[in-house]
């Protein structure tokens, strides 16, 4: 919101990581609540969910190392691939409920520039579709706000 301090957006380490992913040629898109937030949705989250193309584990690990992000590959302690660090809020999303393949969903992304980094963001319609399909308590809880944001977004798109 409008305040006296400068907006932060992504943390310095997150910026370095996203840039490293791009320089490593790892295809990814931002999904989930952070992506919805970048399309006006009045919702809050703990993390930035990233959905990667298949077989990108090596590139992700290299980008994490380059950016100083702690990365724990999946399966060591029955864990999913996990990121860590004091100013790192990134999560790797392994499956997206109710959506098509990563490559097909690339066609349903928009580009947003955040802290000077051009990021592919899953569009709000598809985020809502994934939340509906996931249908957990926490997904159902955010649906009204996401749907209201879609109404607001469309009203602006109609504007000449």
């Amino acid at each position, binding site marked *: 919101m409008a305040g006296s301090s400068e*907006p*932060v957006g*992504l943390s310095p380490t997150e910026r370095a990581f996203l840039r490293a992913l791009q320089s490593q040629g790892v295809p990814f898109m931002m999904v989930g609540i952070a992506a919805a937030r970048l399309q006006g*949705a009045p919702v809050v989250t703990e993390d930035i969910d990233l959905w990667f193309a298949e077989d990108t584990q090596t590139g992700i690990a290299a980008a994490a190392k380059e950016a100083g992000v702690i990365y724990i590959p999946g399966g060591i302690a029955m864990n999913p691939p996990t990121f860590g660090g004091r*100013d790192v809020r990134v999560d790797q999303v392994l499956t997206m409920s109710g959506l098509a393949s990563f490559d097909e969903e690339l066609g349903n992304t928009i580009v947003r520039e*955040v802290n000077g980094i051009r990021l592919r963001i899953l569009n709000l319609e598809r985020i809502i579709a994934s939340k509906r399909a996931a249908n957990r308590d926490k997904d159902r809880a955010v649906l*009204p706000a996401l749907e209201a944001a879609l109404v*607001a977004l469309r009203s602006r798109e109609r504007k000449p």
Partner: protein
Amino acid sequence: MVYNLWVHSILQSQLSTEQKHYLSLWQKAVRLAEGTKHDPGDIYHALCNLELTPEEQLDGGFIRAGRA
């Protein structure tokens, strides 16, 4: 009724440009919510968020700050 309209027009004329802007967003939200199940408050906040920069949008959406 006529009196109310008169009072409202007087009140609106006394609003600052910023107040008028946010009032117009609220009125737009109410219009968009009419006849739907959507909450005008959610639409209003989304309209406000859409006026922010991407960095500001992210800042408002995190429980944990990014510690720049």
